């Protein structure tokens, strides 16, 4: 181990020293970062990396992470940390504690994309042997992407010392790519090809196809070249096949994810419209209220309990349910209850209501989008293989939709309220004769539907605008889902949402987003001709009215 590290450091020093002619002192080099000119900064960055100083990686990380500041007074480069009465600053080179200052005393060292790319690459090379496996993985990936020839030796050494299997796999892949591109002997290339053809990464595909094109362009190829070209083609086909497979899986995932968004948006409507028969045009606004509740909860957290900010989204779920639910109850008691049995008139009243609610939110919160941030645990991707990465927030939305549906089914099937609700919607008069307070049940049912819509708003705040128009964007789709699935049936809503989502995603690559949507709409129109009451139609006399 020790020997390899020494070898690598030596190699790095040698290699980096050749890049910057004069290996300079780190502090001196860092001064270059104070320049306003990005070319100067880039030069400084390269010099820093070449200095071989153990703190150089630390400095570059700080620069990349946006935690490198210059003091306005002395032009010293410092990193800062927030403390109660300002910022604790430390000299970046010497790690000397420089006391507490205010943010106005510091100016941030800005970097641009080019520097960002460069630093990542440099840091990647410097961190191949870092203690943290995650950083080593990143380093291997960064070498894989940039493929510098001089990294072949350090990378093979790092691979030999690697204990973590997933990091080792990434290093092996990177090394194979390096050998394939820079390999001197056909044997080395052929060996690398064996590893590469097992990958499922678009980058590998482009690597192989570039090579295939190069080989195909050779005039009068020798038999060896021909044979090698054939092998490359075979490898390419293999990778392609895997990528196509992954593409289908990705499509299904995206379809389910879109379906779960539709499900969330529609499920509240499945209750207010499907079960109660209210053509609830204000449903979208309930979703919007849920999203704004999320915003308010998050702001409260930000101001009063910043430590709990990461959990604010979870706290927002019951909050949104309650706020939207109460709105729903208020709407039911003040308007809807006078309109039972006149479904088309509920359309007009709730439409008017939706205009009022939109303007109300606009008056209170202003017309602009509000920021609802995603907590750390919801951002990023779950990398299954190189070509397939599922985003955490989409996974979370799928799970959330499933949970909401499950809870709702539980409420409807297993609670006495659910029983009363079904009784009232199936035969109001008889239910009333049995002593059920139909008015109360109506209010609660509408409240439940609205509350669920509010919870959908929490999820939508993660992927869409939090603006007064949020609800409008989903109302038409929600109605389509409920009607397609069959009014009054939650399973229908589920199947409807998922099938529309998946169909949409499979059409999209061929038709584009707009035509896919048009096709879906036309499909719904035709489907309703075939089954005029949706996928899962309720049967019986009650349906006729």
């Amino acid at each position: 181990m020790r020997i390899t590290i020494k070898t690598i450091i030596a190699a790095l020093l040698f290699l980096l020293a050749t890049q910057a002619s004069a290996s300079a002192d780190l502090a001196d080099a860092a001064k270059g970062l104070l320049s306003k000119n990005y070319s100067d900064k880039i030069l400084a960055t390269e010099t820093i990396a070449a200095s071989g100083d153990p703190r150089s990686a630390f400095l570059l990380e700080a620069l990349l992470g946006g935690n490198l500041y210059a003091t306005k007074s002395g032009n010293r480069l410092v990193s800062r940390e927030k403390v109660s009465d300002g910022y604790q600053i430390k000299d970046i080179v010497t790690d000397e504690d420089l006391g507490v200052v205010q943010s106005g005393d510091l100016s941030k060292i800005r970097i641009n994309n080019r520097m960002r790319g460069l630093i990542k690459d440099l840091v990647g090379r410097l961190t191949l042997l870092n203690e943290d496996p995650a950083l080593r993985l990143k380093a291997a990936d960064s070498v894989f992407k940039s493929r510098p020839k001089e990294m072949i030796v350090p990378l093979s050494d790092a691979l030999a010392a690697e204990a973590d299997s997933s990091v080792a796999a990434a290093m092996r892949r990177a090394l194979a790519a390096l050998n394939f591109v820079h390999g001197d002997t056909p044997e080395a290339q052929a060996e690398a090809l064996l590893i590469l053809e097992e990958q499922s990464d678009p980058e590998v595909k482009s690597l192989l196809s570039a090579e295939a094109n190069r080989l195909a362009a050779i005039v009068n190829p020798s038999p060896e070249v021909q044979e090698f070209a054939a092998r490359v083609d075979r490898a390419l086909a293999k990778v392609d096949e895997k990528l196509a497979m992954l593409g289908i899986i990705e499509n299904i995932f995206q379809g389910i994810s879109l379906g779960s968004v539709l499900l969330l948006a529609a499920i509240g409507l499945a209750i207010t419209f499907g079960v109660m028969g209210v053509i609830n045009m204000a449903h979208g606004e309930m979703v919007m209220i849920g999203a704004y509740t999320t915003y308010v909860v998050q702001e409260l957290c930000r101001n009063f309990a910043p430590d709990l900010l990461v959990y604010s989204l979870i706290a927002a779920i019951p909050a949104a349910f309650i706020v939207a639910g109460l709105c729903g109850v208020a709407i039911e008691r003040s308007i809807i209850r006078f309109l039972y049995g006149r479904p088309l008139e509920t359309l007009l009243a709730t439409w008017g209501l939706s205009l009022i609610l939109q303007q109300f939110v606009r008056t209170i919160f202003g017309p602009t989008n509000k920021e609802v941030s995603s907590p750390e645990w919801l951002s990023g991707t779950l990398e299954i293989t190189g070509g397939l990465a599922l985003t955490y927030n989409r996974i979370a939305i799928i799970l959330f939709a499933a949970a909401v549906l499950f809870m709702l089914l539980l409420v409807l099937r297993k609670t006495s309220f659910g029983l009363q609700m079904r009784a009232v919607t199936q035969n109001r008069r008889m239910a009333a004769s049995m002593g059920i307070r139909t008015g109360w049940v109506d209010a609660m049912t509408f409240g439940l539907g609205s509350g669920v819509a509010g919870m959908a708003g929490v999820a939508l705040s993660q992927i869409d605008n939090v603006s007064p128009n949020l609800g409008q964007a989903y109302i038409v789709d929600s109605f389509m889902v409920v009607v397609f699935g069959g009014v009054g049936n939650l399973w229908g809503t589920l199947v409807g949402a998922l099938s529309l989502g998946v169909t949409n995603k499979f059409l999209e690559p061929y038709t584009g987003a707009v035509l896919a949507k048009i096709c879906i709409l036309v499909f719904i129109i035709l489907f309703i001709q075939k089954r005029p009451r949706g996928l899962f139609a309720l049967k019986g006399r009650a349906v006729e009215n």
Partner: protein
Amino acid sequence: MANTIFKTNKGPFVSLMTGLPGGGKTFLGILLVAALLVPLSNLLLPETSPFHVPTYLVSLMGKYVCFALLALSVDLIWGFAGILSLGHGAFFALGGYAMGMYLMRQIGDRGVYGNPVLPDFMVFLNWTELPWYWYGFDMFPFAMLMVLLVPGVLAFVFGWFAFRSRVTGVYLSIITQAMTYALLLAFFRNDMGFGGNNGLTDFKDLLGFDLQVTGTRLSLFVASVIALGLGYLVCCFITQSKLGRVLVAIRDAESRTRFSGYRVEYYKLFVFVVSAVLAGIAGALYVPQVGIINPSEFSPANSIEVVIWVAVGGRGTLWGAVLGAFLVNWGKSYFTGSFPEAWLYMLGGLFVFTTLFLPKGIVGTSATWIEKLKNRRRESPDIGAPLSVKEE
């Protein structure tokens, strides 16, 4: 009294006139007066006169009249046949597009790129020749035929499928909404060849008359009023005939009507097509007066609004629909100018108020009140009863 219509031996028009409800005659009278007085006052009276109608108001009124015709068409199917279309804006817009295409072709080489055949947006999208569906639109009669045919055929095909499959009630409403939404998305696409989001605009003249001249505006206004009057007569004729009786029967009890031996779907189909054609005509008159037609006319919200005009005015009363269209649109014009921050509260409040307190719209409810005043022994309105709108 409406039943007397078929017993008279007079010509159909005369019998229609005599068969009109009293309100109808007044209504036609008002239209006639408007068609005469508005242009005269605009042309003859000095601007300072309090009775002078400024040109601005003429175009505004012209726009309202088109909306009124659209409301009438919705009322015909919703008020009398129980078909709630949430996609009637589509027929309106299609009629408008047909007219817009004619107006576009009239521009000729006066567009910015000076191409004598292709409209600017096609030149711009690198199209080399006119797509086939634009052929013929340089001829006014053909364009007018399309104004009638395109909405009519679409309504026929759509209705044929929907009514034969017995899609009713909310389901029908939602698929009409799906239809207009699909058309909205389709017309948004620039590749469709209808100008995408910007739609058709920059119109120059109609039948050789400059669209910006007051005289043209007045003529368009008068034409719209005449169209509204004729549309009203057509609707009256339909609703007062035996056909109209069957429609009302379908509205109130579809199954019973079917069991009585009527082919419900044909009745519905007929009235749906007529209504779509009326909406198309309204659209065609609307476009030259506002100077633009674009896909936002297809948006589901627009179609819902039309239904609301009818509801506010009074469903099932033809001139109630007209009144509703005027009132709501006037309210919109007035409030968006005078209370730009609060007008949505007022408009939204109006809709809620109407459904709660005027369930039969302004006309229906005031009729009820008058009846009440007359015989003071009317039953209380039964909230919760199955949907039915009583006749005047």
